[in-house]
């Protein structure tokens, strides 16, 4: 079933259009930076963006920093929100279930497919950004290694390791979003409602994070530690927020996947 879901993902034109659109923004930013040579001052703007003017190989990281906070979660919310409600709306859910595909198996396959989409998107964004960075942006310190956010030097090897860690962390954050959207997808009839519901949660979370009066709630909001992946590029690595973020996302994943499973197992499929 997982194989079938992956084939559906790859066969769908929408998958590729979405990836293309997501990929367009960092590419545009890269081109603008190269043309104007106007980077944000260090410490402002999206992470790593000030550094890419000197070292173009850092641009994949900067591109992910651009995509992660907004574009990717929206894409995940739409894709995961579609998972069950979309099949139901299309009428194909009942034929899958009588094929028979076990309900748990279907949920797992859908979740794997959503995560495969995230991996695919991240790879495409990173690869495009690497090409853009290498071709258009500065190439001063390629051999000397990159500079950490804290100012000290990082070896290429260390940089790769930390990048992989950061990607894993970002995946976990997206898994949290996918869990919420998948749960909503088993509840509502329209895939759009599931996607919008998930986005509403994320927007509300972001809003509450900027509100001092919501201090008590903030450690539990799903987007609270999303950008903690930047801490992985400090020297030494600042683990505190990353650890909290991992625990928080795991809690969201367990709670919402559990709810999605419980709801779907006992649901009357009447679409």
């Amino acid at each position: 079933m997982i194989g079938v879901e992956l084939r559906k993902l790859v066969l769908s034109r929408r998958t590729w259009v979405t990836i293309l659109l997501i990929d367009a923004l960092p590419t545009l930013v890269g081109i603008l930076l190269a043309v104007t040579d106007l980077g944000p001052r260090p410490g402002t703007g999206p992470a790593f963006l000030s550094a890419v003017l000197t070292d173009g190989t850092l641009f994949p990281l900067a591109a992910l920093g651009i995509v992660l906070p907004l574009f990717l979660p929206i894409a995940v919310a739409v894709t995961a929100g579609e998972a069950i409600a979309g099949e139901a709306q299309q009428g194909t859910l009942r034929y899958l279930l009588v094929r028979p595909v076990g309900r748990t198996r279907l949920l797992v396959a859908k979740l794997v497919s959503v995560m495969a989409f995230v991996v695919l998107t991240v790879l495409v964004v990173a690869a495009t950004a690497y090409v853009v960075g290498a071709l258009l942006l500065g190439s001063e310190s390629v051999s000397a290694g990159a500079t950490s956010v804290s100012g000290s030097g990082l070896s290429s090897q260390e940089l790769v390791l930390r990048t992989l860690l950061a990607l894993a962390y970002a995946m976990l954050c997206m898994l949290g979003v996918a869990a919420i959207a998948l749960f909503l997808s088993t509840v509502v009839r329209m895939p759009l409602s599931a996607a919008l519901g998930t986005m509403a949660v994320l927007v509300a979370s972001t809003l509450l994070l900027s509100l001092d009066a919501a201090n008590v709630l903030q450690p539990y909001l799903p987007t609270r530690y999303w950008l903690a992946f930047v801490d992985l590029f400090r020297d030494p690595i600042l683990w505190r927020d990353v650890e909290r973020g991992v625990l928080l996302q795991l809690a969201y994943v367990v709670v919402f996947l559990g709810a999605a499973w419980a709801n779907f197992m006992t649901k009357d499929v009447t679409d």
Partner: protein
Amino acid sequence: MISTNGLTKHYGRITAVDGVDLDVREGDVYGFLGANGSGKTTTVRLLLGLVLATSGSIEVLGRPMPAAGRTVLPQVGAMVEGPAAYPQLSGRTNLALLDASGPGGDRSTRAGRIDDALARVGLDGVDKRPVRAYSLGMRQRLGLAAALLRRPRLLVLDEPTNGLDPQGIREIRQLLLDLNRAGTTVFLSSHLLAEIEQMCTRVGVLDRGRLVLQDQLDHLQRPTGRTVVRTPDTGKARALLDGHVERQDGDTIWVRADDPLALNAQLVRVGVRVLELGPERRSLEDVVLEAARDSGDRR
């Protein structure tokens, strides 16, 4: 093949299916009749494990449903409330994906089975187009092909001729009868009496969630003990059959007589010109309406 016991389904305060005891036997073409909203589709969904029963039990192919769905459903071909497919993919790709997604679809025979199923429903040669470009009738045929893909022992079809033209309806009817002759049990749900009357060996009638009738079709349509005579000489005939004529409508009279042959000889002997003569059989429509009316009175 299918047997349910006191099958009941509530949606909130609405009772969609109410104490239904279905009995579908091997080799039947079972016609499941009922008006729109009588609970047919809910019953079909219950049989297939899509909807979970409030109370009562279901056995399909001798195994409890939905518990044994993993072993039962691969041997069941189903079409529920219209066909469905991924619109951007071709019919062939749709069938391949569906076959690959569950158990019992051997990969090595897949292409052959898909060809076979498409040919059976008359869709061979049109499969490059995406399903988006299919007509309603073609989608219906594709849905049937999906149901036939693993040569099931039991076909559960909900309104299978929906959207087909008369020619298509005839083809599908012939296909189902051929399959039945080859040993497939067919459970056919429909609100079209004529369709059921032409195909089915056994009939169940659902009315507002209750099974009000379940019997062999030929038993339901057995002669009523009256003979229908059409003659221009109604006066003469009535005089002869004095007391046995129950009703007259224009040139047609209904005579209480068990033996149409003897009645004919009797009429001809006295010079009554007979245009038509035969035993009266109840139409399925009469049977169904009567059963529904009786159940309505009981409430």
